């Protein structure tokens, strides 16, 4: 089952914060987050494993609530370079990732 992301699109001004949510109807072992720039391949950001952990690097962090089968990606003090489409991916057994439909993030100066 494909995870559901919200919102579908976000427009921010540089320096503002954003939250992207990812939810699944099935129990999750892990959640992946990727960013894709227009015309390029997705780039891995981080993975959150079962255990309800929170991870982050720079000003991008994420949380994983396995009981609620949800994950959220937090972008603080957004930079122009954060623009792109963000995908969450959840495991469909045996390391097969199923991706959400994506959230398009636009950062304006």
């Amino acid at each position: 089952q494909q995870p559901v992301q919200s919102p579908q699109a976000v427009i921010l001004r540089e320096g503002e914060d954003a939250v992207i949510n990812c939810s699944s109807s099935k129990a999750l072992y892990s959640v992946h987050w990727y960013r894709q720039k227009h015309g390029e391949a997705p780039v891995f950001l981080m993975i959150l494993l079962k255990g309800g952990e929170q991870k982050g690097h720079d000003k991008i962090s994420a949380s994983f609530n396995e009981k609620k089968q949800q994950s959220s990606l937090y972008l603080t003090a957004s930079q122009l370079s954060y623009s792109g489409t963000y995908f969450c991916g959840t495991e469909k057994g045996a390391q097969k990732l199923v991706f959400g439909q994506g959230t398009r993030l636009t950062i304006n100066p």
Partner: protein
Amino acid sequence: SQTIHQWPATLVQPVGSPLSLECTVEGTSNPNLYWYRQAAGRGLQLLFYSVGIGQISSEVPQNLSASRPQDRQFILSSKKLLLSDSGFYLCAWSDDRSYGYTFGSGTRLTVV
């Protein structure tokens, strides 16, 4: 370090023609390999998955097939392309459940 190569970068093919896209991974052994397709402005659809030589799992019934003739080589093929096969094809690899996928640079296929 590990690298993934995917080619060609762009391809324009007529309807009914065959297809062969190749992906190779360097710097790792026995990787899990994947083919994804992305329609314009859409998400990533898993097409095929392989855990080893000759082991292919098909996720979506369609006009495509995949093969893994060598440990670090993954090939996507079609005997006769359809218009609906157009899209951005991405190869990816992973070798540990605690790490993410690394994607190749992709092939943009247009069937005309």
